[in-house]
């Protein structure tokens, strides 16, 4: 059963009452969220004519404040993400929320993986999950995906060197039927693409799921189009699905469709692109800040979040799957103060 079914009008009609309900729920169960709503003039019982009217939280707030809608003794799992500046988002899940996020992620990925678990080639090293001390966002991402495959083989050895024999062994055993390849975008490009091209590996039965952004590949002038073209031309891999997601909206991935250009929203999610001057929603074709919307967050007020990513809607109900489809264009730079209380790091050396 696919979760990419709802056309935009139906989607908004289904999401709006649920999101309004979530706003009330989080207001009732979290003082911090209730305080914010009161301060920005969103009183209890307010009705909204449109999902774009719902109050959003800046996503970085989860790095600076504890925002949760469950009592401490019901916290089952705290998810963290390390940001580039070292501060960490903390996302609180109860048992139910933790189960829901895995379930919904599974349903979303089924759209491209099918109902059965596939043999899985992980474009990473076991080192990143073995060493608990350096347990990173990358490690967490890999662990989160690993449940969606079976018979895992790691494409890099413990020293992060491509393990040609391991990959060859995996392909010999599973390469004639559909298999899953997962990795971070830059790892997949740096390690799998070259390895496969140079050794003539046949990836034509693979389904690649990757994420993490293109920033690290800018130097190599690789964008989504070049990535897809090169893999197809040199390895036969055509089923390539990038995805966009964040720990603050756990359980939701915006998945690249079979048309290979755009990210699509699962039925329980949506996006809005906002003009960063007026904060009004923007129509397709106009780039702005990405607001992510989802009905999954029950244990923390993350149902409507303003990200610091820039994106553009490519179309609505005119793509491979229904709803809005969009691209991520980059990240807003972090604002810097240039005041005299700025630490003179050099001198402090």
């Amino acid at each position, binding site marked *: 059963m696919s979760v990419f079914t709802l056309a935009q009008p139906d989607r908004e009609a289904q999401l709006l009452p649920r999101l309004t309900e979530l706003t009330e729920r989080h207001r009732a169960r979290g003082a911090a969220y209730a305080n914010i709503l009161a301060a920005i003039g969103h009183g209890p019982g307010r009705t909204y004519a449109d999902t774009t009217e719902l109050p959003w939280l800046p996503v970085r707030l989860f790095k600076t404040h504890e925002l949760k809608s469950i009592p401490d003794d019901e916290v089952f799992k705290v998810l963290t993400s390390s940001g580039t500046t070292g501060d960490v988002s903390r996302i609180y899940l109860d048992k139910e929320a933790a189960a829901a996020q895995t379930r919904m992620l599974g349903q979303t990925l089924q759209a491209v993986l099918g109902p059965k678990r596939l043999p899985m080639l992980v474009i990473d090293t076991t080192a990143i999950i073995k060493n608990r001390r350096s347990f990173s966002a990358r490690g967490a991402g890999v662990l989160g995906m690993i449940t969606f495959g079976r018979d895992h083989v790691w494409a890099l050895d413990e020293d992060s060197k491509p393990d040609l024999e391991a990959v060859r062994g995996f392909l010999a055993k599973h390469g004639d039927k559909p298999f899953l390849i997962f990795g971070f975008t830059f790892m997949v490009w740096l390690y799998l693409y070259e390895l496969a091209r140079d050794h003539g590996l046949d990836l034509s039965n693979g389904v690649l799921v990757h994420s993490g952004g293109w920033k690290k590949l800018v130097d190599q002038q690789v964008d989504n189009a070049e990535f897809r073209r090169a893999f197809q031309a040199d390895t036969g891999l055509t089923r390539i699905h990038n995805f966009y997601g964040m720990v603050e909206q756990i359980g939701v991935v915006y998945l690249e469709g079979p048309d290979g250009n755009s990210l699509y929203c699962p039925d329980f999610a949506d996006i809005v692109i906002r003009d960063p001057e007026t904060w009004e929603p923007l129509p397709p074709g106009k780039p702005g800040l990405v607001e992510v919307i989802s009905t999954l967050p029950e244990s923390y007020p993350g149902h409507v979040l303003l990200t610091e990513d820039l994106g553009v809607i490519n179309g609505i109900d005119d793509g491979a799957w229904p709803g809005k489809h969009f691209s991520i264009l980059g990240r807003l730079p972090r604002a810097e103060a240039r005041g005299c*209380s700025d630490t003179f790091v050099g001198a*402090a050396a």
Partner: protein
Amino acid sequence: MTSLEVRFPLSSVSSASPLSVDRLLAEVSEEPVDGRLVVGDERVRDFLVAFSRRLLKPDLARRHPELGSLGFFLRKAELARAVERLGDRPGSRRSPRGLVLHFPPANVDTIFVYSWALSALAGNHNIVRVSARSAGAAETVLEALNDVLADAHPAIAQTQRMITYDRDEATTAALIGACDLRVLWGGDASVNALRQHPVRPLTRDLAFPDRSSFATISVPGWQAATPAQRRAAADGFANDLYWFDQAACSSPRDLFWVGDAAAAQVARTEFADLLAEVVAQRGWVVDPAMAVEKYVSTYGLAATGAATRVAFAGNAVANVELSGLDDLQRHWLGAGTICHITIGSLAELAPAIQRKDQTLSQFGFTMPELDDFVTTLAGRGIDRIVPFGQALTFAGIWDGFDLLHEFTRIITIQA
């Protein structure tokens, strides 16, 4: 040990490169041509005056308005007044301290020049560590200094150095170990880190660490003001608010409305409109990244209950209503964030003031009211009270120190 890059004087007496710290210290400590520097040394005055003229040239002042203020500060008459203020008299004479080492803040482009110029005027030999990150106005200042050096007395090039070096403990330690006064600007962490290096027994510290600043409006004063005065107040406040992205030590973070609550409400509405007009007129914009910064910080204040209301007037101005004086904001919240609070009197404010609090910029108060406030403060904090528009205007008395006094020592004489 890392090598030093000399930024001033560019035509250094030694063109040896790379320059070691020992060599630098030896060079700068040599006795200059025509004798040792004295307080108010004519050779230094001439150089500073030439530098001031260069800064006040229209091309420069247009590009960097802050350099205009600096040029004004260093005019001949201003220098004479400053030296006079030291008050040398029979039985009490001022003398230079010796070698002064300056660690200016990385991001405020020009503050190092004030600190250095006054120290030079006091007859000291100086080494200024200029940040490698320096840009814009700082580069222009260094150019201007080097430009006017050609006509200056050789003693200037001999005794004054502005240098840049990469993060290096040993170099910092060597410089600090050789100086008679170290001037430390910057965040608390960097000031404390620099303090870890031992100094010679007689060496003194002059530290300018993190500070916080506020603004206040007298509601009766506002009511009594003419429309033109009110507009000027909004204009001055806008300058104070946006200069250095509101991140300077003297940038106001909170705005106290002092007077009757209902009347304050009326005044606040009018002030908000005027401020919006001023900001629009000047075409000031706050970029999206800064706007997001402000959403994060102000929503954060709301989350904890420190703020009861958060309202954005476009991206440029975020108006925050604070819950009370216990929630005064002393940290940077993003450029153009005003935390308002209405109180009955300045006396109510006094207990909330801390030693860290530096500047109170004010509108509409009388001298006796402000004087009474200082009495009520009883030393808790606040180093300067200035009218709106002058929060960031540097003065020879800063952070409670008379800099020329600090840059000299007193010799008492009894026959």
